[in-house]
């Protein structure tokens, strides 16, 4: 499985997450992003966004065998 090339895809996604279309299937990602949005709202430093993106990337990397996560990754990859 090809991952989106490291964190930039996730960084871009998180930066747009206020307007994120409802297209993620992986339940855990939706729950994590709900928290990460609050973290980024409280601290809008670029480094915070990157740290959050890495956290999201790590979640997908750990779960890349799950069908719902794989479908999300394929969609993220196709959007690069």
């Amino acid at each position, binding site marked *: 499985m090809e991952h989106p090339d490291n964190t930039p895809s996730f960084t871009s996604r998180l930066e747009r*997450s206020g307007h*994120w279309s*409802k*297209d*993620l299937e992986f*339940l*855990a990602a*939706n*729950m*994590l*992003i*709900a*928290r990460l*949005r*609050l973290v980024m*709202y409280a601290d809008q430093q670029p480094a915070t966004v990157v740290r959050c993106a890495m956290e999201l990337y*790590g*979640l997908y990397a*750990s*779960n890349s*065998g*799950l*069908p*719902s996560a*794989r479908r999300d990754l394929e969609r993220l990859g196709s959007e690069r």
Partner: protein
Amino acid sequence: MAKALFSVAEVARLIESGKTLALAGDERVLRQLPRGNWIGGTTPYFIGDAGGVCSRDLIHVTELGEDAQAAQIARYDARSIDRVYIDAATAAYSLIIIPAQSPTHLRFALGAPSFERFAHRPLIGWIAGIHLDDLGKVAALVFDGRSGEAIADGAVVLHARLPKGKVAELAILNIFEMGEGPDIKFEKDGFEAREAVVGGVRVNWAKWLEQKQADTRLPLVADYLGTRVNVSFQNVDAAASVVRFYAPVFVGVTYRHARPVRDYAAQFTRHVPADIGQVTFSCNCILNYLYSELEGKRTAAFTGPVTFGEIAYQLVNQTLAYLLVNDAAGT
């Protein structure tokens, strides 16, 4: 449908044969079981093979033997529960039980999404409860079958592995949808709220709910990027100006009161995905059982404990949580 509810004698035989089990039952029957490779939690409410049932004599059995190559039992308390996802890292999935209203319950509910390695592996489970006739008289318990010990504050977890080529995936089935009412936001995380920002206006929320004659059998629903996550009302105390919940509300999350649901069991069946695969474990909420009068009614192919909270990575309410074990893609 496979048998889900067993007598004490039948469960004792399963334990003595070396099975790895996750059990749900009344305190009295769980205390009678022999030591072995099992965890348990208290509830006398179940969805059995014949539908919803309340029994102080039967035990719901989830047998991990067919799916799990090996399962390790672990215990946590309010100080160590933040390690649960770290310890789960080498498991295929983990099944957790926590007693209602314990410090560990509160710590997990408020903190889980911030725990290190949150959701890096599926964590499913439930909040142990009691018979509603016993509210205020006895405490919910969990059991560590290795010692037979009953625990009023802590969590018991089965970290399970799977054979190569198998994968576990956690899902929820929530038939509640956001209603047409105003957005509701909170300014503090917690299991209770005195004020809420309703439609952009800060209000005494208990009084607001009372004035609107809101049906608090229906949960608050938050939209997590398309996934609906519920928080249930425990009570509304207008005199004390406080609203209490069965799961915490969080700052920055937008909630709405749910739209009414007619005939939960029928709606539920309509929402079950086709070709769902092998359900290894599921649990449903005591409030769905009560408000939707599930006694004697089946909820598709799902059986399991009826609980005081469901854990699908984090604590949710009025939701069916379930775990599927299927072939990994490409195998």
